[in-house]
């Protein structure tokens, strides 16, 4: 499990890597929430391109960070999620939230 953070202007990007299950969600959550607390970014991007596996624990993880960002008046975006991750997130209706930036959309832009 690996987390790299990079900030530019008012955007902070957190690059997540590894398998996002219940076991790994704990430490990841602690790291990302610390970034939110310290930087209070206007916009937080969770980069999923290094995530090789995700189950419903990942849905809880994204929803939790979404609420954190809402509570400080910021925005959350998810980028780089594979079609596989999307399949899981779609079950939660997450594609209906304005956080979703898929591979497909990036290519079409």
């Amino acid at each position, binding site marked *: 499990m690996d987390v790299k953070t990079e900030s530019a202007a008012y955007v902070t990007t957190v690059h997540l890597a590894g*398998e996002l*299950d*219940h076991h790994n969600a704990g430490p990841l959550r602690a790291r990302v929430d610390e970034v939110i607390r310290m930087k209070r970014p206007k916009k937080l991007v969770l980069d999923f391109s290094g995530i090789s*596996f995700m*189950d*419903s*624990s990942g849905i809880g993880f994204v929803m939790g960070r979404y609420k954190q960002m809402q509570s400080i008046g910021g925005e959350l975006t998810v980028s780089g999620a594979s079609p596989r991750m999307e399949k899981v997130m779609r079950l*939660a209706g997450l594609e209906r939230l304005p956080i979703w930036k898929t591979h497909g959309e990036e290519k079409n832009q």
Partner: protein
Amino acid sequence: MKAMNEMRLTFTSRSANEGFARSAVSAFVAQLDPAVDELADLRTAVSEAVTNCIVHAYRDTIGDIYMNVQLFENGRVIVRVRDRGCGIPDVKKAMEPLFTTGGEERSGLGFSVMESFMDTMRVRSTVGKGTTVTMEKYIRLRRRHD
């Protein structure tokens, strides 16, 4: 029909074993030469079932999780995940999307994931005795080398 191969695995309800359970099921089902997506579906469903044992069944303790996988000639895979934990008082309600007793970080979608990624799913549970989740999936048989 009789299973052509079967494995049984018992492991403790430590969260590090979520990844182990996924790897074990992948390695075993590889014999059927599944497509990447089929294997990913199975891994995800197993991850959900095992995580539920760890998070809910043995919430404040450590107990044993029993996993059983059967393979059939026609590509059918049966996965059973069983615990001797707290049990579920109302299975129908527990299976409703978004229902959770797990608090903030849980989405209540584990059973929905299992249902949509597998062909069938059954839950049997007795309060105080434990829970068994049985799931089936047909792996499309592709060209076999044997």
